[in-house]
Structures are given as C-alpha cells and as structure tokens.
C-alpha cells in the first residue's frame, strides 16, 4: 500500500476549529475582562406569528438594535449578549413551552419580551417553576396585581392600570363625563374595563356601556348600535389583525356626527394613520406610550432611539414608509434590556446560579432618569410589585399626524401596592 496524503474528517474539523478561533479572536479580545467570555443568552419570546405578529416584528427590530448598542459598548459584565428568539405564535400554551426550551435546551440566562397578556399569564407559572427570570414587556396589570410570581418582572413598560388612571382626569375635564367603552374581551381589555371605569367614577364621570369584542373578531359594525345615544366620549382600545377594520367601521357608523373619541393607540399600532377611511379621526385623541411622530420638543434620546431601530420621523420604517412601527410599545424592549444589563452588573451576574441575585438587584432599583437607556421618559421602579411607572402621553390627530397635547407626571400614574413579591421565597 502506498501512503496517501489525504485529508480526513478529523483534520478538517481541527482546521475549522482553529479557523473559528482565529476569526473569533477580536471578539475574545474585546470581551477579555470577563471571567468567562461566553455570551449571556437572553431568550426572546417573540410573537412572530398569530394575532400579535405586527408587534413581534417591531419588538424584534428594537431588541436587535438594543443588543447591538449594548454589545458595542462592551456587553454585560464584559460578556457579549446573544438573543435566542423563539416564536410563541401569540399562544399561551406555546409560550410556556418556549420558556421551557429557553431554560432546558438553549441554556438561556433569562427570558424576555412577551407582549400579549394571555401569553404572559400562561407562561409566568412556567418561569416560576423553571426559576427563570422572566422580563415581560406587556402593559398588563397582571404583574403588579400579584397574580404572578417572584420570577416575573415588568421593568420597561408601564401597566394598564396606571395608564388609564392617568388618562381619566384628562378625559373627564376635556372631552366629557359620559363614556362608552369598547375593548377586547381578554385580560388586557378587562384591565381597561375595570380600572378606567373606577378612575372615571372618581372624576365624577360614568361609564354608560361596556362593549366587549372577542380579539379574533373580523367585523365590528354589529357591535356599535349598543353605544347609547347620550354618549359624550367613546373610549376604544382594540388589538389583533383586524384593528384597521375596527376603526374604519367605527368612523362609518358615526358618519358626520360623532361624539368625542379617545382611543388607546393599540387600536392603530402598526397601522398608517393615512389609510383610507381614517379621515374621521381628525380631532380625536389617543393615549400614546411614546409619541409615534417626532414632536417639536423631541429629545436627543428619542432621536438616537429612532435612528438605532430604523424608524423615521413619522414612526415608520426608514426602508419602507408603509411599514408603520408599534412605537407606543416597542421602546419597552429597549428599556427592559438596559434594565437587565444594569441588574446583571449590579448583581455581578456570572451564570444561572446568580438568577436570584439578579432579581434582587432589579428589585432594589428605584428611579431611572431619562437617558439613552430610557428614551421614552423617566421611570420609577417599584421593587415590591415588580412594576415600573412612568409618564404617559396624550396626542391629538391634527392634519393626519399625532401631536402631543398632554404629558402626565409619574405621580399621576401611581396607585397603592397590591402585592409584595420580595416577601416571597425564590
């Protein structure tokens, strides 16, 4: 037999490994100060499909941008951040499975990102069982109500109870006292129903009628005759793939003689205000978590945030002006990731054994000033209820654009604690 020069599988693998190391060398140098330079893995529970898909797309872009910024600045504790995104189909059952996958298969340090309240409520028990810190970006009151567990936190976006409580005085003083509410028939809509009707009563107003609509509904005109004749203000909030139909049919129903209309921008998130059929919205009001259109008094932080995520002054994608963002919500992903970073650095986080330390570090947080890490505005975190509080915006539609007319204070949004998660054991 003549000896042959041949490359076998092993030598190829060895060569590839060496090549990989070489290629990764600048990365290793950049994150060299860490004890371990393995990436910190953040499981991103993303609504890529299902009724939350528009949010999922923009939560994804915001997350990518935030991680890029964090990594460019040296990562967390000297380690790079890696996002493990997994589609939950906007489905609670799938959501819990995704968390399990994060903890047991992908080796994620924490989980983050969920918006829809039924998915949060369905997934949080799994987070508790897996002892996986679960940072939600959901708006629901379920975190602060005490319904969930010590592993679930909401440090990057305010909850519905504080939002509607801060809206009620403006609505009753400027728009009217007799309100009819239209909301989606699931946990998020029920938060609106319960807390707004209580808050408007405190202002001397009343809710005449509450119209619940299933979130999967596609045709809405049939619900509107339930609106009482003496309604002064329509309060609407809707979610799901049919929001544009909802608002259009609302306008068609009223025609030229509409009452005052106050909506949560959720009803039009990811929808172009210039869509045909929405002209009647001129002069109506919206709650906005973060103003979609760049305002006259735009901060440098908002400007930086828009540029990083790729959003233009009208709140649409810079590459496609028809691709409108979920601007009132997606800042929550950006801010939550920065809270995770701050928490991990304060806790000296090294690995999954430090998860409890991380939660304690976040619980110890209080004031977060407006900055590049918090572009939406200043925040105040309540460690006991695991919920953050912040300013809210009210905008009016003027010439087809949302113009900010009112900014609440943080104090307007506060309410007494309903739970003390810090007293629960890990």
């Amino acid at each position: 037999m003549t000896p042959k020069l041949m490359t076998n599988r092993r030598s190829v693998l060895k060569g590839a490994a060496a090549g990989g190391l070489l290629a990764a060398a600048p990365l290793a140098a950049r994150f060299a100060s860490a004890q371990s330079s393995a990436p910190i893995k953040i499981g991103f529970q993303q609504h890529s499909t299902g009724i939350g898909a528009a949010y999922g797309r923009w939560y994804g872009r915001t997350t990518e941008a935030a991680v890029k910024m964090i990594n460019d600045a040296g990562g967390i504790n000297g380690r790079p951040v890696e996002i493990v995104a997994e589609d939950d189909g906007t489905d609670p059952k799938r959501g819990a499975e995704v968390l399990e996958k994060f903890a047991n298969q992908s080796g994620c340090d924490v989980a983050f990102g969920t918006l829809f309240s039924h998915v949060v409520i369905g997934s949080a028990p799994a987070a508790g069982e897996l002892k996986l810190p679960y940072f939600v970006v959901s708006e629901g009151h379920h975190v602060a109500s005490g319904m969930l567990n010590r592993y679930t936190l909401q440090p990057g976006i305010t909850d519905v109870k504080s939002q509607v409580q801060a809206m009620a005085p403006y609505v009753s003083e400027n728009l009217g006292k007799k309100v009819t509410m239209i909301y989606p028939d699931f946990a998020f809509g029920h938060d609106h129903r319960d807390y707004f009707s209580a808050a408007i009563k405190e202002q001397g107003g009343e809710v005449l009628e509450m119209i619940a609509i299933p979130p999967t509904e596609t045709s809405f005109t049939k619900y509107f005759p339930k609106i009482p004749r003496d309604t002064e203000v329509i309060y609407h909030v809707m979610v799901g793939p049919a929001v544009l139909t909802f608002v259009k049919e609302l306008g068609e129903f009223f025609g030229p003689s509409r009452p005052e209309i106050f909506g949560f921008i959720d009803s039009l998130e990811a929808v172009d205000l210039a869509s045909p059929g929405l002209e009647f919205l001129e002069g109506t009001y919206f709650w906005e978590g973060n103003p979609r259109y760049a305002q006259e008094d735009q901060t440098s932080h908002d400007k930086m945030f828009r540029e990083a995520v790729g959003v233009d002054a009208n709140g649409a994608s810079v590459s496609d002006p028809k691709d409108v963002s979920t601007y009132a919500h997606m800042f929550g992903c950006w801010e939550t990731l920065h809270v995770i970073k701050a928490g991990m650095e304060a806790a000296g986080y090294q690995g999954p054994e430090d998860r409890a330390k991380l939660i304690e570090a976040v619980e110890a947080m209080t004031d977060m000033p407006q900055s590049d890490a918090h572009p939406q505005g200043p925040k105040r975190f309540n460690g006991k209820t695991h919920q953050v509080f912040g300013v809210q915006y009210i905008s009016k539609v003027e010439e087809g654009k949302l113009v900010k007319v009112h900014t609440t204070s943080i104090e307007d949004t506060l309410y007494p604690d309903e739970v003390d998660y810090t007293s629960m054991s890990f």
Partner: protein
Amino acid sequence: MDFGPHLLLAVLEGAVGAAVLALTALGLSLVFGVMRVVNVAHGEFFMLGAVIAWFVATSIGGHPTVGFVAALALAPLIAGLVAVLVDRLILKPVKYDPEATIVGTIGVLYILQQTALMTYGPEARPVEPPFSHRIALPWFEWGENGFAMFYPWGLSTNSYKLFVIGAAIVILLAFWLIMTRSKAGLIMRATQLDRETALAFGIPVSRVYSIVFGLGAGLAALAAVLIVPIQQAHYLMGHDPLLLSFIVVIIGGLGSIRGTVLAAVLIGMSDGIISVFLSPTLSKIIATLLVALVLVFRPQGLFGKKPA
C-alpha cells in the same frame, strides 16, 4: 338605538355575511356532491383568494378599481389552478378514498397556510375597495305629526357592502344557470348522480373531478376577493369560513345547491342578528346546536336526498 333601526342594521350586516358564506359553502358542497371528497382545506383556498387579491391589487397600482377587477379575475383562477394541481397530485393518487382524502386535505391545509405565512407574512393587510360611500339610511315612524321620515344616529351602510350582496346574488344565479342549463352542468350532475354510468357514457370523469375541485376552490377564492376590502387578508383567516361552511353544508344537505344557499342565508342572518342583539358567542353556540339537531333528526340535511 331603537329596536327597528337596530334590527335593520343587523339584517344588513347579516346579509353581507350570508352572501360571502353562500359562495364559500357552495364550493364545499359542490366538491362533496360531485366527488364525495370532504375538503378540509377549503378555508385555505378562501385565504389564498384574499392573499392573491392583495398581491394583485398592490402590484398593479393605479385606481383601486383596476386592481380590484384584476384580483376578481385572477385570484379565483390561480386558486382554482392550485386546486387542480392538488387534485392531480394528491386526491387522484389516493383514488378519492374518503379517509385518505380527509387526511390529504388536512395536509394541504397546512401546506397552504404555512406557504402563505412564509411568503405573505403574518400581517393583516387591506385591499382598497373600488368604491366606498357611507349611505345613511332613513327610518319611518308614526310620531305626533303623523308619518315621518328621519335618519337615526348610526343607521348606515356602505355602498361596497351592498355591492357584495348584489355580486353574490349574481354569481349564485350564474352558477345555478350553468349547473341546470349548460352542457358542463349536465356533465357535472351526471357525474354526481352515478359515476360509473357517466363513465360508461364517455364522460371523462377524472377531468370532471379536476375541474370541479378547481371550481369549488375558485368559488371560495371569489368570496374572499369580495370580502377582503371590508376585512383584511391574513394567513389565518381560513378557519371561520371553513367551520361555517361545514355547518351550512350539513344543515342544507351535502351536495344540494338549493339547501346550501338557504342554509347560508339562515346561518349568516342568524349570526348577524343574534350577535347584534345577544352575543357573538351565543350565535356560534346556536349554529352548532342546529347542526347537532339536524344530524340527529334529519341526517341527510334539510334538502339532501336520503341515500338509496
């Protein structure tokens, strides 16, 4: 809102639903009647129609009417061609065996749905209606000054919605004429009555099957093109039409055109009216209950023929 205007609004909304449902269910009924195939993927052909309508309307541009008319012609055609392919590649090889076709069409359901998700994406997108005017409707009342006409608050409809109802009626009439007056209809009816004898008389049954399956899918797609300017195209939109079509076809009698149309009007109207006055959940409960009652007391459906 007063009871009278409220009822009128409910009837109008119900009529739009019934019109679209009648077309969709007719496709399902036709396929079952002629081919004895339970097409579980029927709702996805509906979705396909809406999604193709969006692609056609956005790629053509110009006045919305141009895009809409093009979609009206192209979407049913393309959906029909896809269905013919499904017939040739899946249904024919399994020899139209009832169990195998159910499993096969479930597979088609997922293939179509996921293909739409991968190409069209998870968003809901609107197609601009060719025309859309709000029409305020008057109401009559005996008041203090005798007979009077007035425009109640919120009582209105939309010219496009009326067009949908009209278009559906025209399509249904055309379909009925084709089935009863044309040679193609005769061949389809012959195949439905007795496959073996039709074959013996030289009817190319296999080709008839392909055409019928394509026609059934085309009807669903056509219904979707009509509704997509009111609702929006979404990759999951096939669920409800499928469920309702099955309800309609079971109540009306599988394979009966007359029964299907009547049952569609019944279910569409009751869905509109019950969900307006009571609750949408209740209307679904009642429709499902009706199916159960029909299955127990009249298994062949209201207008179906008893099996010999």
